[in-house]
């Protein structure tokens, strides 16, 4: 142990943390958050009764209820396991990571999560959702006395529909808000039903290619019915949803009026030479949950 490590007064997570994270995983995989349930089930009234779009939204509604009642995964693709964690300064994040990883292993064994971590060269599945890059942890420190954990499970079908545009673009326009809007709608067009629409978009304008995609995904931590505090971004969000829902792509790409449930946009500064629009496409099976946890590892409040 180095001298530096010895002098840090570390706060170690208690064993209750393991149970709290396991329960967070179970809830995330099996219970869609209320804001998403409201949006996806409420969309059915806009579709023609008996149409394929109506049938799709009806099945989606049934599926949400079945998964919740039977405590089984809403979707078999339990996706990339993304933890967004805020901890007090001095908290032992390495211990948190170890405990949360153990909880992922047990959640996989229990069938809350599918065996979803595959060696990219050999194709071998590790069988327990661990391995290089899995699960994913985004740690931040804050001045609060407790821990906040948000968990997102993002399926591969929608992840494959993510897109990144570099403006100017010959067909989509220049480095302005029109170019941004056209780029986002091109992503919707290309995705069609392949990302399990109705979809939700997280978008980042700016950043580099890496930070842009990461920040786009972070926009998906926002509530569906919130309003962007930046009126310029709020207006693009609204335009994108309106236009997408007039495109006729519809749920599952079957045709219909519900193509997007929401669009959430954030910005990062960019280099003078770069102008990226990064889009994270989320499926209707939008699994994100969270918890506030005390230093004893107990959940004090469930989020979402």
């Amino acid at each position, binding site marked *: 142990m180095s001298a530096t490590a010895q002098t840090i007064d570390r706060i170690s997570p208690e064993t209750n943390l393991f149970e709290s994270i396991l329960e967070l995983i179970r809830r995330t995989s099996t219970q869609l958050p209320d804001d998403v349930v409201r949006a996806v089930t409420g969309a059915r009234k806009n579709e023609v009764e008996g149409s*394929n779009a109506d*049938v*799709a939204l009806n*099945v*989606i509604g*049934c*599926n949400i209820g*079945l*998964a919740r009642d*039977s405590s*089984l*995964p*809403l*979707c*078999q*693709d*339990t996706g990339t396991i993304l933890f967004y964690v805020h901890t007090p300064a001095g908290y032992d994040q390495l211990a948190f990571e170890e405990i949360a990883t153990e909880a992922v292993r047990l959640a996989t064994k*229990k*069938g809350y*999560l*599918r*065996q*979803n971590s*595959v060696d990219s060269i050999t*194709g*071998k*599945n590790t*069988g327990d959702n661990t391995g290089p890059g899995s699960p994913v942890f985004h740690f931040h420190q804050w001045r609060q006395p407790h821990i906040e954990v948000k968990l997102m499970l993002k*399926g*591969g*079908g929608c992840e*494959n529909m993510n897109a990144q545009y570099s403006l100017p673009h010959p067909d989509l*326009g220049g480095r302005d*808000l*029109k*170019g941004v*809007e*056209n780029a986002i*709608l*091109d992503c*919707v*067009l290309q995705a*069609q*039903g*392949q990302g*399990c629409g109705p979809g939700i978009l997280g978008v980042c304008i700016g950043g580099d290619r890496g930070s842009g995609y990461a920040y786009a995904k972070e926009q998906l931590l926002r509530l569906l019915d919130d309003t962007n505090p930046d009126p310029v971004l709020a207006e693009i969000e609204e335009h994108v949803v309106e*236009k997408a829902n*007039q*495109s*006729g*792509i*519809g749920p*599952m*790409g*079957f*045709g219909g009026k519900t193509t997007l449930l929401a669009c959430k946009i954030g910005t990062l500064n960019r280099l003078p030479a770069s102008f990226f629009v990064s889009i994270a496409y989320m*499926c*209707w*099976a939008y699994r994100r949950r969270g918890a506030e946890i005390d230093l004893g590892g107990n959940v004090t409040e469930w989020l979402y």
Partner: protein
Amino acid sequence: MALVKLTTPIDEAIIRSLHVGDTVTITGRLYTGRDAVHHRIHTGTKPPVDLEGHIIYHCGPVMVKEGDQWVCKAAGPTTSSREEPYQWEVMRDYRIRGVIGKGGMGEKTLAACKEYGAVYLHAIGGAAQVCAASIKRVDGVDWMDLGSPEAIWHLWVEDFMAIVTMDAHGQSLHKSVFEESKARLDAMKC
């Protein structure tokens, strides 16, 4: 738009009578097969089961072993477009009568559906519990070395619902929705 009950294995004539927009319910054996299975067949390995008259389900289920028995915990469709390079060949060589998946497939598969007598059946993506409710038994598994989500699972299903979105007459809902949505979005461009 008809509601048609199918029992596997299925006759070619029945498959050729289906049209885009028809709803089907399937009873009988289904085999899962996705990326790694299609790639392995494409590179020359014969499938371990007789696929003639059957339907391949593009699906990587959540399976848990309880005692000696595999139990299916969740089993919705995966995105089919990734099998586009291989699917036509499997239709030609092994006489499958269709695939179930989500998101639709491209021109090669559409042409193969017409030539060899097959359809593309769309299940509801993400609806893993509704799909799993139709799976009554897991009868076996092959190619487990590919990992559980990629293996060939032998499922027994009753009244598994899907919508015909590509038929053996050259029609594709995906093609028509893409063309129409492109025209509409082009007209709304800033």
